[in-house]
């Protein structure tokens, strides 16, 4: 008999628990890829194309090869003799894409040769000493000209530069039968009393995780085994692709994501630099390190967004939307990367927004240009859909002289309509949009802000209010929606001493899973959080996994962890029941004790039961020794978080500079494990969404030269760019997983961008502006105010 000798443990789930990751990070004791040093390790540097499009006439590597300490110089053509073209993760047709260009370069920054040397500075010197002669070709930069094969075609097999020529979606489209019935959408526009039509651009961005990419590849010839450390969001997927590309089995590769300094989608892709490092390590039999420069990151790490949209909205004069047409043209850059072609299909999926719309027609085209390929970037397709629809809704409200909040209210999908099958084929799990809207209007003091705006306008100030509502698709899978598999994996072990070690396939890079997952297990087993360790990011430790993207860690990774925990807890209860001669279903796990319900003063300590399970004398009938189990799980559906963002923006009459005065965000991500971490996730998303609207833009000139190639010319948001965000939450749990958690990592990017542009248009409406494309460059705004320029 043991008595409880400590106070009742506080409930961990739902509490603002300080992060367990932080002590190492705030003391400079974490290990990122560039912090790894191995004996005999060599360094790799790339020679990259300085033109956007051209044939490689010759490469002179002799000067580089003569430098003492240079071990290997290799061109793309020679590398291709033992390293094949890169695989992609989508079912779309794709041109060959080599890790290093073999005969033609198609974007500025594409690698043309690589150097391996004993020192990082030396490797850079040697790469710079390589001389490449190009026969330049015209650069394809403008996406609409590209579709006319102007000025040329980038890949011979892809006529008119069409990577994905035409995908229809929405009402009346039967993808299986391949038929399109336009009667419903035609009727919507025939019945319309008002039609809004607008061309809009959701422009290209650079993800810019603060830690650039990096890799250490270590092939051990004596073991025929490869270990790769990489700054990746998904080590298990990396492992599979590295094995495939190196002619190895995936039992011969271990992939490790050490501390990862941010991802934002751009570290999902498996890059040529990773394949090159592993292939050359295998060739030379030594470890090789490559660390990306920031200028390389701008040129050669996947970009995000870059979708052009022609949108038409049909409505009645009372504001009821009858139909929406969107023609989406995605500028995907020069090649298909892992998920490139799939990202715009997420835009397509989410074109329904939060509204009950009778008919929608979306047509998607994806186009090659001589730019860095796009791929996932925080939000990945959904911010684009939200931007187009919410801008158009705002234009409709302005046309009808309706309050933008009221227009949205009368078109919302209602709570009793969930699960709601959209025109785009999604099934929204749960939602209460009006509640979030009302909370947003209340927190913002919407009518008060309107009055304040009038006062400020009377003083001659240029001020606007913007509102946007969003719904996103998160918690990806199931497997039918994710080519990698839409599941996640977890393992839970109760150690002999009664502590808990758990593994998760959700490989974090700032999301705080070591804390949130430990909160869950602490509550599940009734032990202090200090007694739980969460291991991740190492395929040698974590048996299986998919990874962290699409706001799926909590909804999918968290759920499977709870399920693995349940299995172990059930077994532990059997051991405890045998020890106490009690029925296992009567046992309670609490305060480090396992006791019979109703008798909290009696029972066995957690550690005692664990010790018994590992030396089970006698072994209870039907039980194996030990306390360790694992689980795979995938959801039956995605989750659909939503929210309402509101902004107040002032434009300086004299300089054109926009200043964000207020930013209000209501986000509903279902049940919350750690509110502090959720707030941090929303803050970060808001900053990126605001950044896109106000200052961030990747720009190529007409020759395909990257104009924004460093932090000197690409405006990254700084602390002075933001007001204090005002936030709150509604909580609508999802029925899709037992935690009721929907996901929150990307939410902030969804509503913030359109609501700021809506605010800018509102501010400029006295000047006749109905739409303005991002980003809100001061010169553009100044000309509207001071020279009567059109937006």
């Amino acid at each position, binding site marked *: 008999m043991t008595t409880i000798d400590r106070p009742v443990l506080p409930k961990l789930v739902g509490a603002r628990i300080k992060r367990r990751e932080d002590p190492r990070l705030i003391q400079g004791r974490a290990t990122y890829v560039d912090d790894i040093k191995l004996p005999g390790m060599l360094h790799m540097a790339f020679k990259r194309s300085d033109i956007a499009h051209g044939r490689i006439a010759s490469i002179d590597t002799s000067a580089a090869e003569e430098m003492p300490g240079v071990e290997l110089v290799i061109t793309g053509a020679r590398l291709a003799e033992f390293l094949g073209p890169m695989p992609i993760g989508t079912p779309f047709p794709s041109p060959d894409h080599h890790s290093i260009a073999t005969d033609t370069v198609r974007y500025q920054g594409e690698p043309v040769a690589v150097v391996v040397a004993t020192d990082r500075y030396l490797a850079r010197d040697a790469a710079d000493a390589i001389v490449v002669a190009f026969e330049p070709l015209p650069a394809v930069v403008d996406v609409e000209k590209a579709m006319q094969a102007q000025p040329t075609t980038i890949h011979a097999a892809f006529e008119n530069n069409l990577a994905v020529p035409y995908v229809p979606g929405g009402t009346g489209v039967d993808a299986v039968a391949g038929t399109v019935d336009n009667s419903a959408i035609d009727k919507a526009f025939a019945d319309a009393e008002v039609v809004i039509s607008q061309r809009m651009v959701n422009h290209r961005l650079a993800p810019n995780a*603060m830690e650039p990419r990096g890799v250490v590849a270590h092939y051990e010839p004596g073991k025929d085994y490869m270990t790769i450390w990489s700054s990746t969001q998904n080590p298990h997927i990396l492992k599979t692709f590295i094995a495939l590309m190196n002619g190895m089995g995936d039992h011969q590769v271990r992939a490790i994501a050490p*501390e990862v300094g941010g991802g934002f989608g751009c570290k999902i892709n498996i890059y040529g630099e990773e394949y090159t490092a592993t292939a050359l390590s295998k060739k030379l039999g030594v470890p090789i390190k490559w660390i990306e420069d920031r200028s390389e990151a701008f040129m050669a790490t996947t970009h995000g967004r870059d979708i052009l949209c022609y949108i038409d909205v049909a409505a009645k004069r009372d504001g009821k939307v009858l139909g929406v047409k969107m023609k989406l043209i995605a500028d995907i850059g020069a090649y298909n990367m892992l998920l490139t072609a799939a990202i715009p299909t997420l835009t397509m999926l989410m074109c329904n927004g939060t509204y009950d719309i009778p008919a929608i027609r979306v047509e998607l085209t994806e186009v090659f240009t001589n730019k860095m390929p796009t791929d996932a970037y925080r939000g990945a397709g959904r911010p684009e859909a939200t931007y187009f629809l919410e801008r158009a809704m705002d234009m409709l409200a302005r046309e009808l002289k309706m309050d933008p909040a009221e227009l949205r209210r009368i078109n919302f999908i209602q709570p009793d309509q969930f699960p709601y099958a959209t025109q785009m084929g999604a099934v929204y799990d749960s939602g209460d949009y009006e509640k979030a809207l009302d909370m947003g209007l209340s927190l913002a003091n919407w009518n008060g802000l309107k009055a304040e705006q009038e006062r400020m306008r009377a003083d001659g100030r240029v001020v606007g209010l913007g509102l946007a509502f969003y719904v996103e698709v998160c918690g990806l899978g199931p497997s039918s929606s994710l080519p990698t598999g839409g599941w996640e994996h977890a393992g839970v072990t109760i150690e002999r001493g009664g502590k808990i070690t758990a593994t998760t396939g959700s490989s974090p890079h*700032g999301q705080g899973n070591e804390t949130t997952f430990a909160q869950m297990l602490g509550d599940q087993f009734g032990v202090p959080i200090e007694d739980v360790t969460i291991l991740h990011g190492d395929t040698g430790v974590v048996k299986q996994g998919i990874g962290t993207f699409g706001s799926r860690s909590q909804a999918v990774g968290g759920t499977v962890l709870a399920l693995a925990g349940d299995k172990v807890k059930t077994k532990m209860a059997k051991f405890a029941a045998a020890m106490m001669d009690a029925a296992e279903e009567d046992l309670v796990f609490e305060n480090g004790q396992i006791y019979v319900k109703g008798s909290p003063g009696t029972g066995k300590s957690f550690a005692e039961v664990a010790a018994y399970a590992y030396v089970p004398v006698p072994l209870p009938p039907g039980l194996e020794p030990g306390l360790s189990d694992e689980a795979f799980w995938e959801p039956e559906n995605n989750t659909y978080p939503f929210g309402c963002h509101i902004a107040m923006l002032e434009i300086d009459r004299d300089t054109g500079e926009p200043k964000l005065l207020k930013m209000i965000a209501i986000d509903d991500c279902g049940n919350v494990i750690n509110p502090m971490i959720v707030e941090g996730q929303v803050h970060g998303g808001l900053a990126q969404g605001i950044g896109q609207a106000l200052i961030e833009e990747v720009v190529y000139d007409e020759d395909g030269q990257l104009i924004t190639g460093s932090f000197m010319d690409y405006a990254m948001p700084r602390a002075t760019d*933001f007001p*204090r965000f005002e936030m709150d939450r509604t909580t609508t749990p999802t029925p899709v997983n037992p935690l009721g958690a929907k996901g929150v990592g990307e939410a*902030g990017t969804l509503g913030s961008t359109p609501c700021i542009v809506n605010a800018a248009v509102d501010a400029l409406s006295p000047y006749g502006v109905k739409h303005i494309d991002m980003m809100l460059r001061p010169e553009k705004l100044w000309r509207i105010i001071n020279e009567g320029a059109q937006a």
Partner: protein
Amino acid sequence: MSDTVPVRISVNGKMREAEVEPRLLLVHFLRENLGLTGTHVGCDTSQCGACTVHLDGSSAKSCTVFAVQADGSKVTTIEGVANGDNLHRVQEGFWEEHGLQCGYCTPGMIMSAINLLGENAQPTELEIREGISGNLCRCTGYQHIVNAVQHAAGQRG
């Protein structure tokens, strides 16, 4: 580039001597020669501040200083700000207020914040935002970093 130059730099209170290439950046001297990998490199144009250290008592971007320029100087890195097991109050602030996510910008951000509070013990929110505007963070949207600095200044309950 094999000619080397001797340098003597006091780093976190210890005198360090080495023969270095004249072009060796201070950040690489700290990271590669001394193994002090808490100082990070986030760009190549002195914009991001991930490499911020204290050079003779004030903030410096160690990617913009050659090791030879720091000869005879005193350098403090993130590894040198705690007092044994006792965290610096700015480190405490970052932990308490969730002032970091991926952690990559954090060492530089903390070094800038310490410098800021050294010059202005009770900064306003705007002064904090301006004081850390030489440091980029892509994760937090800065609000919790501002809270962290306020915490360190004793401005939050």
